[in-house]
C-alpha cells in the first residue's frame, strides 16, 4: 500500500481500489464444482485408490518382495507370498490385502516398489457398504 497520509485520509482512493479488486473477481472464473452433476477432476498426482499393475503379457508385475509392506507407515498392507509359475521371478503374492480404512494415502508403497507394480490412482470416491468391503484383495486390486 503506497499511499500518502492525506490520500489515506481521503478514504475514497482506497475504496475505489477495493471496488476494482472485487470487480476483477466478479468477472473471474468461478471455483465452484457442482459436484453430483459435474465430476471433480483431481489434480495431477492426486493419491487415491490403489491398483496393482500388469505387464504387457497380462501378468501381474508384483514379485512379492514385501518392500511396500515394509515401507507402509500405516501398516495396512498384508502380503502372503507363494511360488511363481513364471521363470522370470521366484515369488508372486498369493494374498495381497490393503486395508483402505487404515491407509493414509501417503504413496510410500508406490515409491518403495522396485518393479513399478503398485500405483495410487486418482479415484477419490472410495465407497463400501461394510468394513469387510474396505479390505481390497488381490483380485480387486488387479481389476482396477
Amino acid at each position, binding site marked *: 500500500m503506497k499511499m500518502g497520509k492525506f490520500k489515506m485520509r481521503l478514504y475514497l482512493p482506497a*475504496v475505489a481500489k*477495493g*471496488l476494482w*479488486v*472485487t*470487480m476483477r*473477481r*466478479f*468477472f*473471474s*472464473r*468461478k*471455483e*465452484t464444482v*457442482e459436484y453430483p452433476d459435474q465430476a471433480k477432476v483431481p489434480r495431477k498426482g492426486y493419491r487415491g485408490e490403489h491398483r496393482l499393475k500388469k505387464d504387457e503379457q497380462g501378468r501381474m508385475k508384483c514379485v512379492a518382495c514385501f518392500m511396500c509392506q515394509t515401507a507402509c507407515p500405516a501398516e495396512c498392507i498384508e502380503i502372503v507370498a507363494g511360488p511363481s509359475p513364471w521363470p522370470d521371478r521366484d515369488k508372486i503374492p498369493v494374498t495381497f490385502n490393503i486395508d483402505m480404512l487404515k491407509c493414509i494415502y501417503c504413496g510410500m508403497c508406490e515409491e518403495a516398489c522396485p518393479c513399478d507394480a503398485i500405483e495410487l490412482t486418482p479415484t477419490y470416491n472410495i465407497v463400501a457398504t461394510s468394513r469387510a468391503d474396505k479390505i481390497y484383495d488381490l483380485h480387486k486390486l488387479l481389476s482396477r
Partner: protein
Amino acid sequence: MNIWDLAKIVFVIALVLQGVPVLVWLERKISASIQGRIGPNRTAVLGLKAAGFFQPVADAVKLLFKEDVTPGAADRFLYQLAPLFVFVPPLLVFTVIPFGNRIGEEHLQVANLPIGVLFVMSVLSLGVYGVAFGGWASNNKYSLLGGLRASAQLISYELTLGLSIITIILMAGTVDMREIVARQTRSAFLSWNLFGGGNLLLLPSGLVAGLVFYVAALAENNRLPFDLPECEAELVAGYHTEYSSMKFAMYFMAEYAAMITMSALFVTLFLGGWHFPGLVDPADTSWIGGLLSHGVFVAKMGAVIALYIWIRWTLPRFRYDQLMRLGWKVLLPIALVNLLVIAVIGVAWGER
C-alpha cells in the same frame, strides 16, 4: 379517487414489494460472483431453474411456515408493532416519487405533494422508531444494543442526508418532486443535479452533494460498511435477534424496501429521475414514451442498487467510533460547506 390513482397505487406497492425478491436474488448472485462462487441455482418452478431466481420465493415460503415466537419477557404490543413501523416508511416515501414521465395527462406519480422533499425527509426519519421499538420490546441485551446503535446512527446520518437534500433544494429552487425532475430534463446530462443542475459552476458541488448523500444513504439503510446495528460478530443479529418467522421476514423485506426507496430518491434528486438524454423525450406523452421513461427510472435504480451491493461485498465494517467520527466530523462539515458554496454561487451567479 379515479381508476388511474388506484392503478398507480397498486403499481407502486407492487414495484417495491416485487423489487425485494429481485434484489435478494441480485445480492446473492453478485456476492457469489465476487467470492468466486455460483450462488443459488437449485430452486426451480416447473423445471425452470432461471439461475436460482426463485430462491427468495422458497425462502419466503420457508419463513411463512416457521414458528412465530414471541419472547416471554417482551413488550407484546410494541413487539408486534415494530416490524410494521420499519416497513411502512419506505412504501410511504414512494408516493411522492415520480417513477416516470406521463401518459396522456396522467403523471406517473401517486401524489404530487407541494412539500414533496420535506415529506420525504419527515417520513424517512420515522424508520428509526421501528428499529428502536424492535430493539427495546424484545427485552434482550443484544437487541437493545442493536436498537440503540441503529437509532444513534440513523439520527446522526439523517443530518447529513438532510443537508445534502437541502443543497438539491437550493439548486432546483423548489421542493416539488415533479418540478425537481422537470428541471433536470432541460438539457443533456449536465442538467442533472449530480452534475450541477445546468450550472457549470455548481458541478463540483453537485458531485460532492451526491457523494455525501450516497454515503449517508448507505448508513441510513444499515448497509455495509455501516451495518453496525446488526453487526453479527458483536450483536448476534442486532435489533431483530428475537424476531422469527414472518416478523423477521418483515424486517428483512423492510431493509430491501428501504434500499429501493433510497435508490429511487437518489435517482430522482441527483440522476434526473426518469430522464435520459437521447432516449426519453419529456414532451412524449404516449404510452410508449411513458413506459420508456419508467424503464429508464428502474434501470437507474438498478444501477444505484448494484453499486450498493458491490460496495457491501467490498468493504469491511466500520468500528462504532469511526462511524460516528465519519458522520459528525467529516461528512457533516463537508455537507455544510457544500451548502454554503452553493448558496453563495446561487446568490452571485444564479438565475434567482
